[in-house]
């Protein structure tokens, strides 16, 4: 696809629209899902099944005044929520939703997404630092140690997949998983990997995605029992709204990456289902993963900060390193 001004604008509008719509309605899905698990009805007053709840929440947030605490670093304070939202939107540029639906495919797509994903941690640091609030400060300290701890196993696992595919191009990674469900990277049988440890890699990657997006049970950054609301303690109005949307947009990106790297992207699980458009399969896998995110959040209690770091340094990093070496060995042998 040629890069003209028109399709850049169209891509940007679609990316922002998709991210915003997802963020708004994932909040609804989260609240409904949480309610179902806790055996309540959830938001059901505004509109059918409470579907008008997200726009009304949005209007409420936008109508509020944005207060900046005295002594806060104004520039960083305002920049932080924007910084939370924009890496997620940027990452949509290179995510292939199907063989044809991709804004701009690039041969270092994996690298680009991880580069932007690592900026997500920066917004938390900015928010915590500029708020001039001790709880926000502690939260950003935690966010940094968490980001450092979980980006390592995540990247090592990604390198494993990249080694198997021999490409950093997201479309190429997906194409190599075509065929059937057994060709996907998560299953070691017929695909390129022949590595029986791939399901473990998938679990490691998924856990790291949870931690990277600051989702429960790894939401130490906004542990409300200890830190009021963590880094967004001082944010009201749409500043808070942007953090919230950023969180959900990051979940979408994380699930997209899991789908692409391990679940065969837009490929149909069985060959005879290939007549259904790829984008359907992609979105199906994406939303199943997101449902799992919500499901996990409402199942497990929050971990402790040392439990979180122990899990990464003592379990995830050794296991992912081992799998990296194991995969390298297998590639050399076969």
């Amino acid at each position: 696809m040629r890069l003209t001004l028109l399709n850049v604008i169209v891509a940007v509008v679609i990316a922002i629209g998709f991210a915003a719509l997802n963020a708004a309605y994932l909040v609804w899905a989260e609240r409904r899902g949480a309610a179902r698990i806790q055996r309540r009805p959830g938001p059901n007053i505004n509109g059918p099944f409470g579907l008008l709840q997200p726009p009304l929440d949005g209007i409420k947030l936008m109508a509020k005044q944005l207060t900046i605490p005295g002594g806060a670093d104004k520039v960083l304070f305002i920049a932080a929520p924007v910084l939370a939202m924009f890496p997620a939107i940027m990452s949509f540029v290179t995510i292939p939703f199907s063989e044809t639906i991709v804004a701009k495919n690039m041969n270092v797509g994996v690298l680009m997404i991880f580069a932007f994903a690592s900026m997500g941690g920066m917004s938390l640091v900015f928010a915590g630092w500029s708020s001039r609030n001790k709880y926000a400060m502690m939260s950003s300290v935690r966010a940094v140690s968490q980001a450092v701890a979980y980006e390592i196993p995540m990247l090592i696992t990604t390198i494993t997949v990249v080694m198997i595919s021999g490409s950093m191009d997201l479309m190429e990674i997906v194409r190599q998983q075509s065929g059937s469900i057994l060709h996907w990277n998560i299953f070691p049988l017929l695909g390129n990997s022949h590595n029986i440890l791939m399901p473990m890699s998938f679990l490691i990657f998924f856990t790291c995605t949870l931690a990277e997006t600051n989702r429960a049970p790894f939401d130490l950054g906004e542990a409300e029992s200890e830190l009021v609301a963590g880094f967004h303690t001082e944010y009201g109005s749409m500043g808070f709204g942007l953090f919230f949307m950023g969180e959900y947009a990051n979940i979408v990106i994380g699930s997209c990456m899991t789908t692409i790297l391990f679940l065969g992207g837009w490929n149909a699980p069985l060959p005879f289902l290939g007549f259904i458009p790829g984008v359907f399969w992609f979105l199906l896998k994406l939303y199943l993963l997101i449902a799992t995110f919500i499901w996990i959040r409402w199942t497990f209690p929050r971990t402790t900060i040392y439990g979180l770091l122990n899990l990464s340094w003592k379990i995830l990093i050794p296991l992912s390193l081992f799998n990296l070496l194991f995969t390298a060995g297998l590639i050399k042998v076969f």
Partner: protein
Amino acid sequence: MVTYFSEIYHGLISLFIGMAITFKEFFKPTVTVAYPYETLTMCDRYRGHTELIENEEGKPNCVVCGLCEKACPSGCITLAGEKPEGEKKKVLTTYILDFTRCSLCGSCVESCNFNALTFSKEYNLASTRKEDFIFDLLKRLEERNK
């Protein structure tokens, strides 16, 4: 080394057990009641404020003996009656319950020998004015019969 791997294994299994539980809960019916839209019927032993019991003609069973007034430890009850011309029994004319002081002890209901007093099932009581909790039970009885 063995404990390291067995800890990981058992930890992982316990996570899946937890997720299976929430998965099952997800499909069970809701147990909460959307309060203003639907309400539960109160149980038999619920104690609301007291209420007069009526006879078949819709008149209160009360014979104005005043035992409830004497039994009340907080002095919530003020009642009065009169004997109309040609009647044998007294007829209740006012029965005021000052619910602001009532502790729902039930002494009035216990002391009544004529099956004239009972607890109501009323629980939707909220107001910003004190006067709203001084109930004229005779009036409430008439309103109930309308």
